[in-house]
């Protein structure tokens, strides 16, 4: 795993720092550990919604954790959520940039070289069991919940990146509009617009699938 460009540099001016946060003591190792433990699953899911690749999502979360611990561990504990989210978003963005550059090189080369039929993998070898398959003895409610969750996650994946980002920061990470705007690097009005559009799109997608929450 190697994430090349470190674009997670955060200027102090890009994040709002109130007088309260200035007075807060610096985060110690325990606070950092607790914070990472609390946020890691949501961070993984967020990365999964964006990248749709488990290994890449795990790499992104790991890189974000390493960068936070290495560069910003000395910042006050109250700043950690915003810093971590900003680093994670930048890491995901870097991943897509590298994908684009790699595609520029690999597509013409693979077209020239051509594919070898014998090298093709058997899809059955990599086929995983469906997560929503009903295990023996699982109650129908549990199955219904897992199916609903899968539909919600797919609906979130379908959202435009900025809308998904705003929605998750605002409601899942429980950030206020100003904090979400600072993490996304846009105005507070844009965050509100993205959130509203995301909510409408999600409502429409869920209605289309016949899901009522």
């Amino acid at each position, binding site marked *: 795993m190697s994430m090349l460009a470190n674009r997670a540099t955060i200027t102090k001016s890009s994040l709002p720092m109130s007088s309260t946060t200035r007075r807060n003591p610096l985060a110690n*190792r325990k606070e*950092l550990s607790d914070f990472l433990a609390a946020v*890691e699953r949501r961070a993984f899911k967020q990365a999964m919604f964006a990248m749709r690749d488990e290994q890449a999502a795990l790499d992104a979360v*790991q890189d974000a*954790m390493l960068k936070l*611990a*290495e560069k910003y561990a000395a910042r006050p504990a109250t700043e950690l959520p915003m810093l971590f989210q900003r680093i994670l978003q930048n890491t995901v963005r870097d991943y897509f940039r590298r994908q684009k550059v790699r595609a520029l090189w690999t597509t013409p080369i693979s077209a020239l070289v051509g594919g070898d039929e014998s090298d093709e993998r058997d899809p059955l070898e990599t086929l995983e069991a469906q997560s929503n398959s009903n295990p023996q003895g699982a109650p129908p409610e549990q199955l219904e919940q897992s199916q609903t969750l899968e539909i919600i*996650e797919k609906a979130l994946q379908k959202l435009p990146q900025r809308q998904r980002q705003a929605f998750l920061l605002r*409601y899942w990470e429980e950030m206020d509009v100003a904090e979400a705007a600072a993490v996304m690097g846009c105005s507070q009005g844009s965050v509100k617009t993205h959130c509203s559009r995301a909510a409408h799109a999600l409502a429409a997608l869920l209605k289309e699938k016949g899901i009522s*929450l």
Partner: protein
Amino acid sequence: MNEHELARKIVQRLNGGLDHIKQGTLYRLQTARQAALDRCREVPQPAFNPALAGAGFSVSRGRFFNARNLIAMGLLMLSLIGITYWQYVVQSNDIAEIDASLLTGDLPFNAYIDSNFEAWLKRSSQ
């Protein structure tokens, strides 16, 4: 259902889903967290260094003298040595060759200083 109500219900479902992440994935997240915390512990404590306080950069061994910076510095030094060699050795050889041709040639030295000689040379070449 308004935006906040819908978001609350979606988040409730998403939080429920966090408990069903695969064990392998959870283990990797835990390993990543531990690696990050170890990295945090490795970072040296900032030493009191009044001479460089507020200078805008850190010269601590971990940050500045890493492999990438050392390679870049090595390349810079090599290019500086190369430029110096070219300036003092190659160029002085060229001058020595001109001097040698001046001294060993049939033309007297004054012919090169005379401005009319160059004009005569051009005329004669035409």
